[in-house]
């Protein structure tokens, strides 16, 4: 931090340099809002035909030296129509600006903003106006389905995170998560221990806009972290000149499971056992007399409430916004609960006639999680339905338990699902604070030049405990007393310093905007854990810490020629401590050209047409581990010691390393066409992209004997994504009382691995991935050359004439007369071929109806619930317990599991309506001002799919008893006054 402060002082000296004042005559005046009469602070005043001018102060006043012969002033203010006024003889010139239509939509890009119409890259913005409505807990839910090329798979647990993929993943082993930048702070999106979703730090109600940078010409300014796209989140600010405005938003929701896994009920189960096993078979004696629906025992109505209060306005020169939020969400899985309190404060004062603008953000989050044991989900599907939940004679908390002859729990049988939920408490407390301050100074002597300093601090801390009593069957140990008493904690402290200079000027018909800067970021974590049984006999404890530095120099040049042709070039040089001095620096260039073929004022049908072509190189440095290049040794735990004589010696292990590891590089080519019809009532774009990743980090076998491990992360592969995106936003109806808006986007992406090994061995099978339930270590997917990542690797099932699969019979695909691993083939993959997002909004008088949905085509799912539970061998286990089976057993009829049959690779294409929200707004509830909106939402009302499991939307494509998505009814109010 010391260094940050020094830099800050240095900067202050620069900006306080004296301004040189010239001129013959001084004009003064006051700029106000035409409607409210409030002063406009920071409005731009330029002398017509020149680049000299000034900015209004916090009272809306300005003072400007005007040379002889100047005839006009051009006054502009973000969100207002610019106005050109004639200079008269008077020395005082007051001007009123009308808000009127938004002339220029400004888009946040990295280290600056650009007018939307001047953007050259693939940049898309979603703001408060078109956010998803309904049951929103995590910020990413606002965005789901809104932007072509962005796929968001939300998890179902309360407060849970999401997997966000922009234009398919560009990596296999390294992270595929986009970089997320919150109010200018690139954040660590790894999350802290005990946290369900790192983005929970932001209350969705505080977000003003999401800007998604998709192609490299837009993202390359973020260099080595930009390969998977960048999401810029901007939070709301106060507005100067506004009186205090108060907003309250509150809602309450009720969630229920939609459906259960179709297993046999108790009667069906009893008759199957009786039919299958001969009289006297031990299974018969095990059958119980109850009728237990285990799934209904573990789920319940999840009640959620969410309250947000925000105050905003301006005090003197200081616009402020303060918000508080509270969320309490219970999951449908009993005992699962998420409680969050958020607070955010934004101050954005301007000084020195607004040449010095300061923006301070404080965001804080406190969450308490109670994690339900999700093992109960699989256990409920598997548990014998003829057994009771409770058994008064059971020493295991009174829960029915499968036992051995000596009365100890059977260690192979599933634990009682309700006991899993009820016996034990798994809790965490998580806090995260993101603080940053930007100081933006426009030099008095050279108003075209501005310096920007951004200091950020991201702190998070998670602490958790997991306690299970010794009498829980699943933590039983007669020798030690059993039970679980675990604690853990993790702290992350990430610091940021960024500084850039920006010069923008107009030379005739050429506009030039140059930016250059420096970035320093440090990531630090330390964590510890203590795992023990209750008596403290079996103890594992450990501490870990690490730090990572990222340093960068970056620059951007924007040139606009004749207001028609826009050229952007960026360059970033990134260094990371993750790699060795020889490989740690990377250069990431990008360039884009846009041609405004038809611009704005175009009359006729086609009102806007812009062609964009971009190229850029980005990197991915998040390859896991902080010191993979460094030879180092690792101490072992106490429970992995080795006995020499009577002493147990703690071991030290030399670690495998790749001295040459470096970033992955993705080269992106993008061509896009933005269009607008009918005075931009219909807008949208169509884009094609090609993304080639080289030096792909793959977790590959090292030549045996050459390293201190057998697999290592190293740069050996190539990967390609290409796709087409299309989006359209239309306002089919636009009348005073009736507006209908429609947004639709579609994305087709194709992913292919083009190289995986250093030697290009054609016999090389690939990297097995996609672990499944059933057996140990079984996998169903593979990364192999010539195929999409995570393709399913299966045998081709042979079917009988009646259409049912024949057990254990597969097609001899290579025709060698035997079925071996060589007969496996690659079939489909979990990523959709095409996915769609649809949003529509209808406003009629005070009613507003909105709905949003998504569809996905060609995403395949391995139905692991079926493959692992629809065979009859599992009914009875020789250690004397019973297991339920999937109802499909009647159809499939397998005796033994056939995990690798392609019968279980199923088309997961789906159409899902995410929400329908209906609201009514009461205006002017307090005499002249204030409004009250009441709304109701039905979340997740419709799912159309042919997939036979519960839900085809499974990230990764392996459906193995995932937390089921619920259907929610939500009621809320939103009050403004």
């Amino acid at each position, binding site marked *: 931090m010391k260094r940050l402060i020094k830099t800050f002082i240095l900067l202050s000296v620069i900006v306080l340099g004296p301004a040189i004042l010239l001129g013959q005559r001084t004009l003064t005046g006051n700029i106000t809002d035409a409607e409210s009469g409030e002063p406009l602070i920071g409005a731009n005043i330029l002398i017509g035909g020149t680049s000299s001018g000034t900015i209004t102060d916090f009272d809306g006043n300005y003072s400007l030296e005007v040379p002889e012969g100047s005839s006009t002033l051009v006054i502009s203010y973000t969100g207002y129509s610019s106005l050109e006024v004639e200079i008269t003889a008077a020395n005082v010139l007051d001007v009123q600006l009308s808000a009127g239509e938004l002339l220029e939509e400004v888009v946040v890009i990295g280290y600056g903003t650009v007018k939307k119409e001047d953007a050259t890259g693939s940049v898309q913005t979603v703001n408060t106006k078109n956010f998803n409505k309904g049951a929103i807990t995590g910020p990413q839910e606002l965005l789901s389905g809104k932007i072509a090329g962005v796929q968001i798979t939300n998890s179902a647990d309360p407060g849970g995170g999401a997997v966000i993929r922009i234009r398919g993943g560009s990596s296999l082993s390294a992270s595929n998560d986009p970089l997320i930048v919150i109010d200018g702070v690139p954040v660590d999106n790894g999350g802290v221990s005990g946290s369900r979703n790192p983005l929970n730090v932001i209350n969705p109600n505080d977000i003003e806009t999401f800007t998604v940078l998709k192609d490299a010409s837009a993202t390359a300014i973020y260099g080595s972290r930009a390969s998977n796209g960048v999401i810029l989140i901007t939070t709301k600010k106060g507005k100067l000149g506004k009186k205090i405005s108060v907003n309250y938003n509150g809602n309450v929701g009720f969630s229920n499971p939609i459906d259960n896994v179709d297993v046999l009920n108790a009667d069906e189960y009893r008759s199957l056992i009786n039919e299958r096993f001969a009289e006297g078979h031990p299974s018969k004696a095990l059958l119980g007399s109850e009728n237990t629906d285990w799934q209904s025992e573990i789920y319940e109505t999840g009640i959620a409430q969410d309250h947000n209060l925000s105050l905003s306005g301006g005090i003197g020169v200081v616009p402020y916004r303060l918000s508080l939020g509270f969320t309490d969400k219970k999951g449908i899985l009993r005992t699962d609960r998420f409680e969050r309190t958020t607070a955010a404060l934004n101050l954005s004062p301007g000084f020195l006639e607004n040449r010095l603008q300061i923006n301070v953000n404080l965001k804080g989050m406190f969450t308490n999680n109670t994690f339900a044991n999700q093992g109960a989900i699989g256990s409920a599907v598997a548990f014998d339905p003829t057994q009771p939940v409770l058994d008064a004679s059971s020493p295991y908390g009174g829960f029915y338990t499968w036992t*051995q002859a*000596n009365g100890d729990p059977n*260690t*192979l049988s599933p634990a009682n699902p309700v006991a899993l939920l009820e016996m034990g408490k798994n809790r965490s407390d998580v806090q995260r604070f993101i603080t940053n301050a930007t100081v933006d100074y426009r030099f008095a002597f050279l108003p075209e030049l501005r310096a920007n300093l951004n200091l950020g601090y991201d702190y998070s801390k998670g602490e958790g405990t997991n306690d299970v009593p010794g009498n829980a069957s699943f933590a039983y140990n*007669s*020798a*030690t007393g059993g039970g679980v008493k675990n604690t853990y904690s993790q702290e992350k402290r990430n610091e940021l310093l960024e500084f850039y200079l920006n010069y923008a000027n107009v030379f005739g018909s050429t506009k030039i905007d140059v930016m250059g800067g420096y970035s320093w970021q*440090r990531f630090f974590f330390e964590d510890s854990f203590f795992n023990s049984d209750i008596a403290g006999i*079996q103890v594992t404890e450990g501490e*870990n810490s*690490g730090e*990572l*530095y990222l340093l960068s120099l970056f620059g951007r040049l924007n040139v606009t020629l004749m207001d028609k042709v826009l050229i952007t070039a960026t360059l970033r040089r990134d260094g990371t*401590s993750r790699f060795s001095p020889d490989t740690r620096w990377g250069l990431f260039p990008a360039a884009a050209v846009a041609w405004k073929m038809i611009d704005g004022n175009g009359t006729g049908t086609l009102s806007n047409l812009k062609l964009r072509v971009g190229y850029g190189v980005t990197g991915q440095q998040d390859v896991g581990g*902080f*010191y993979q290049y*460094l*030879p*180092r*040794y*690792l*101490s072992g*735990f106490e*429970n*992995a*010691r*080795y*006995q*020499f*004589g*009577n002493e147990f*010696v*703690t071991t*030290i*292990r*030399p*670690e495998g390393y790749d001295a040459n590891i470096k970033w992955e590089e993705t080269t992106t080519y993008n061509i896009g066409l933005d269009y607008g019809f009918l005075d931009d009532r219909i807008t949208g774009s169509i884009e094609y992209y090609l993304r080639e990743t080289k030096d792909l980090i793959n*977790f*590959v*076998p090292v*030549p*045996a*004997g*050459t390293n*201190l491990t*057998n697999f290592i992360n190293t740069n050996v592969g190539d990967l390609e994504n290409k796709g087409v995106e299309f989006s359209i936003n239309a306002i089919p109806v636009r009348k005073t009382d009736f507006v209908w808006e429609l947004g639709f986007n579609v994305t087709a992406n194709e992913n292919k691995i083009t190289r995986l*090994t*250093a*030697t290009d*061995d054609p*016999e090389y*099978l690939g990297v*097995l991935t996609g672990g499944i339930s059933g057996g*140990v*270590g*079984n996998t169903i997917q593979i990364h192999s050359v010539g195929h999409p990542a995570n393709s399913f690797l299966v045998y081709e099932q042979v079917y009988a004439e009646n259409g049912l699969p024949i057990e254990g019979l597969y097609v001899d695909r290579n025709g060698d007369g035997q079925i071996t*691993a*060589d007969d496996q083939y690659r079939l489909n993959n979990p990523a959709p071929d095409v996915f769609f997002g649809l949003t529509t909004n209808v406003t009629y008088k005070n009613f507003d109806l909105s709905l949003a949905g998504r569809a996905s085509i060609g995403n395949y799912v391995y139905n692991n619930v079926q493959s692992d539970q629809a065979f009859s061998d599992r009914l009875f286990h*020789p*250690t004397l317990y019973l297991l339920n089976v999937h109802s499909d057993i009647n159809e499939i009829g397998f005796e033994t599991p056939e995990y690798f049959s392609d019968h279980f690779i199923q088309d997961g294409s789906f159409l899902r309506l995410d929400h329908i929200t209906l609201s009514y707004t009461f205006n002017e509830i307090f005499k002249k001002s204030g409004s009250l909106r009441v709304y109701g939402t039905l979340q997740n009302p419709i799912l159309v799919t042919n997939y036979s499991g519960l839900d085809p939307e499974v990230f990764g494509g392996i459906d193995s008893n995932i937390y089921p998505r619920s259907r929610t009814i939500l009621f809320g109010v939103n009050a403004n006054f």
Partner: protein
Amino acid sequence: MTSCFNDLDTVPIDEDEITSAKVYEDPNAYRQVLAKLYAGLAVSGQQGPSGQADIAGIDEGFGQYLRAYWYHQELPTDEAVIGWNDQTIKDFHDQDWDANDVFINAYYSRIFYQISLCNEYLRETTDEKLDGRGVDGTLRSDVNVFRAEARFLRALSYYHALDAFGNVPFVTEEDAVGAFFPEQISRADLYNFIEAELKAIESILLPARSNEYGRADQGALWMLLAKLYLNAEVYTGNAAYTEAAEYSEKVIGAGYKLEEEFSHLFMADNDGSEEIIFPINFDGVNTLTFGGTNFIIHAAVGGNMNPADFGIDGGWGGTRTTSALVNKFPSLDANTEVVAPVDGNSANYSLLNIAGAHQGWDPASEATVLASVNNDSNYEGYLYLAEAGEFKFALGGWENNWGTGDGDGVLSKGGDNLSVAEPGLYKINVDTSGLTYTVQKTEWGLIGSSTPGGWDADTDMTYIPDENALSITLELLAGEVKFRANDAWDINYGDTGADAILELGGDNIIIPSDGVYTLKLFLDRPDYTYSIARPSFDSRALFHTDGQELEIADISQFTEGYAVTKFKNVTSTGVAGSDLRYADTDFPMFRLADAYLMYAEAVLRGGSGSIPTAVEYVNLVRNRAYGDGSGNIQQADLSLDFILDERARELAWECHRRTDLIRFNRFSNSDYLWPWKGGVAEGAVTAETRNLFPIPSNDISANPKLKQNPGY
């Protein structure tokens, strides 16, 4: 601002993570890194039982060294099957694995992981480096021995590579860590390397039995050399049986002792055994893994076996054996009978019922009867009365019954009840015509040259009411015995004709060999008969048979195939190990009995040595197994087939079987079939190329210099 760029030069700040430049600043590190070289055989990562894994690409438990070794040495053979559905695991027994097999890859990776670790250790402990760090004095000489142990461990892993994969990549401490393609070494050259390495370190290692428990010494080295030589013909085409015998002899002469009880070698407290030459150490609190003996024990328990008997929390129900191993033992019945009793009751003699309080005064009950062997009026038999009481004789009903008459030994029809004053086994003779009877109390004993008292004093037998038999278990010498009553010859039985029917004063009964025997005498009525059984025949037949089928119809079913109870997490005194979830039991990688059998085999195969000594060594092993000399063999019995079977009996599940079968040419292409060999219930011939595992395709891809083994 440029100073900021130096921030990139970070080093680990975690105390557990040390750069290699700094690790040896602590003198203890030499021993701790050495401990990792050993621990590489025992645990799967730096956190027990899983976490911070050493190798990847495999479930961490599967990738543990011993578990992978066990899979490769046992599952493809007649000694073990596994019922699980883990990946390709069933391919082992079917012998149809391929080069993509993850388990094979794991074993190969483990072997080379060990080799790489040892190489790193050798690089970091060169004289130059030690000088540079100022290491001298005791530490210097300790490190010198540590280095030799590292070379031993490297040779051990190379030996496993040699045995399983043949021609493998070759790396030594000369090769630094980094991206390069190691050369492939031929099997014969690798053999020479291992031999030369072991010879080179022989004098540096500590003398046999003088190192700390768990660490290698000359005994371990000799054992490894003996194994190398014994299999030399397989590895190089040239036999080295003389050397095999020589190094086995060195081990034998080093003072190791056979553990008295065979089963104690595989128990939680086996770390005290003087038979173990080189163990892999495990501990239920300090050395945790899901592989190792923890796997061997857990996986073998299932069905109706009681996990508590094995000191574990619950079985994993996976591994059993085939009938081929079971059938190598003469019989599994604990009471293997030398002489089986004849069913005396089946003889069609006329009977006289004895009714009394002891059987509810039922004149028709045949529970207690006398019999007339000549079908006349003279009846004889023995009656056991648990307490004093009254009785009468009857002919199937009360119409004809006899009680006491006038005077001693006189019977009268319908007379008063007879009685005895005390409990006991009474010999009763009745003449229903002559109306006489005798009731004589008898106490029985065993006498003869085989018994401790010789022909002079008998050894008492005990009456077992439930079996209606007199019984005795004792150690007998080869010789003769007879049964006699009341320490006198008046009533004595022998077996004329050796037909298991006893005759009064009959011929002596032959006891064929020394041993512990159980003899039972069945006297309730004629014909009188007896049994002689060996209570424990071969104590190495450690199987659980209850609820298990001998033959396997479905390998997935745990209850098919006998379970093997050899390894336990219970101490020799019956106490469970320190944690039920993780075993304390050490794995005896090398032990003395193996050295005896190797010597015998090497000599039999033509190595210099003494055949009588070989027989003597084999008999030492068998004597321990039988508890006596009853299992001893003669020189004529010592054949290679016998040795192979004897190795199965002695060393089953100890990771020797695959190597043994290959050395005897019985693994793949021979006519030796066992259940489910080749994936067929009755067993099928498999290709000879199965004698080597394939080089994993992962390494073929990673290293273009490698050539695949033939047949893959």
